[in-house]
């Protein structure tokens, strides 16, 4: 039996990370989750409860006040925590809010009274300018915070996250799209003045949140390929804001629970080669702990697939070329609940607070797995 090891084959993937972890091991940040009965709220609770540097001290709910967290989220039955009212917020280091659009913008002052750092998963602080809220939403109640807010996605905005105290989680469909297209933009393959970029998205039912209506009942929602946002989806605004690119966006509901998959059809001005694409994508994501390029190859899983990343904070991107090279098809797959929201914001919080980037986000997924 070898007795040399240190069990280092799990979290601390590099020495640098190990050092970082050592330095921060003593730090525990208290955290609260507003909207704890919701889907992304539950995902936050799962991730934060398993995070070495966070201690969850409050999860709010109006509808399940005083109930145990495990009653809503059976995977959290071992968590010794009860929901409490969002009207009675605890003082914490970091407040995560996972409420429907419009709630946080009305309560952000309050949030900052009780918390040093506010992380919001809704659309309320995602867009950089108030005018965009006028155009795509119903305006904004607290536009003065928009400049202060940092977009959470580290692959896009890592440089601005350290020290940020208002972090705005990206939209899940926008995240999938941005992760897929950014390397092409950076490589100059995709330019704003190019022709059309078509983004055809397929999403799971958890994207609709725990509320649900008739359309999300099991008999009606099972087995669908349903155009739910044929055109005019609000994530277009976010993509344009952060990628400098206008896209033609269509979203379909398909039969899975977790997952968002964006297929981007791009028509570069100049033909590109597969080698160019490999190089662009590889170099874009070489140092990213959560990104993988999956493109061709053998076996069953040759391109990005949501079920390959379900439950994880990973993103998979890949591409293929049309014969004649006039079209690049980009595939991007994430778990909408993790990389597409809760995981993304925990990742961003890790960066903001100087914690190891992968802390609390190590779960690597399952195989086989059904419709996760």
């Amino acid at each position: 039996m070898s007795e040399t090891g240190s069990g280092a084959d799990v979290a601390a993937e590099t020495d640098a990370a190990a050092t970082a972890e050592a330095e921060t091991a003593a730090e525990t940040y208290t955290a609260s989750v507003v909207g704890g009965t919701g889907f992304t709220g539950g995902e936050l609770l799962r991730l934060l409860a398993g995070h070495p540097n966070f201690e969850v001290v409050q999860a709010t709910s109006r509808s399940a006040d005083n109930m145990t967290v495990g009653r809503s989220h059976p995977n959290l039955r071992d968590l010794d925590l009860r929901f409490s009212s969002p009207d009675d917020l605890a003082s914490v280091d970091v407040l995560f809010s996972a409420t429907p659009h419009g709630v946080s913008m009305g309560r952000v002052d309050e949030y900052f009274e009780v918390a040093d750092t506010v992380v919001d998963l809704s659309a309320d602080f995602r867009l950089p300018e108030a005018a965009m809220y006028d155009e795509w939403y119903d305006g904004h109640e607290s536009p003065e915070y928009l400049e202060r807010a940092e977009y959470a996605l580290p692959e896009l905005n890592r440089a601005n996250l350290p020290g940020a105290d208002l972090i705005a989680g990206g939209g899940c469909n926008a995240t999938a799209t941005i992760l897929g297209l950014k390397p092409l933009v950076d490589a100059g393959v995709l330019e704003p003045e190019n022709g059309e970029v078509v983004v055809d998205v397929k999403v799971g039912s958890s994207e609709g949140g725990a509320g649900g209506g008739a359309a999300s009942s099991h008999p009606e929602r099972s087995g669908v390929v349903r155009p739910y946002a044929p055109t005019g989806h609000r994530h277009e605004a976010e993509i344009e804001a952060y990628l400098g690119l206008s896209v033609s966006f269509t979203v379909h509901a398909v039969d899975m629970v977790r997952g968002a998959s964006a297929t981007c059809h791009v028509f570069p001005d100049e033909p590109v080669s597969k080698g160019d694409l490999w190089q662009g994508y590889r170099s874009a994501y070489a140092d990213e702990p959560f990104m993988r390029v999956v493109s061709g190859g053998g076996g069953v899983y040759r391109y990005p697939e949501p079920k390959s990343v379900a439950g994880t904070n990973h993103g998979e991107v890949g591409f293929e070329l049309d014969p004649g090279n006039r079209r690049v098809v980009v595939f991007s797959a994430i778990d909408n609940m993790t990389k597409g929201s809760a995981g993304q914001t925990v990742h961003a919080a890790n960066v903001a607070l100087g914690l190891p980037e992968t802390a609390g986000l190590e779960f690597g997924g399952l195989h086989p797995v059904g419709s996760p």
Partner: protein
Amino acid sequence: MTTDTDPVLAEDPITGEEIELPADVEVGEIIDSPVTGTELEVISLDPVTLEEAPELEEDWGE
């Protein structure tokens, strides 16, 4: 239905086609077009005038 009143006719505001509506529609009622499925609001009676009903913005909460 074997009502004694006949269905009334109106113009579909989207396609311009003539459509049949129940005899007892009232102003303000929402009714779907048999041609396009669109929800229409009854704006006035005699003749029955229809307008596309304001779409309820469904928040898919992403």
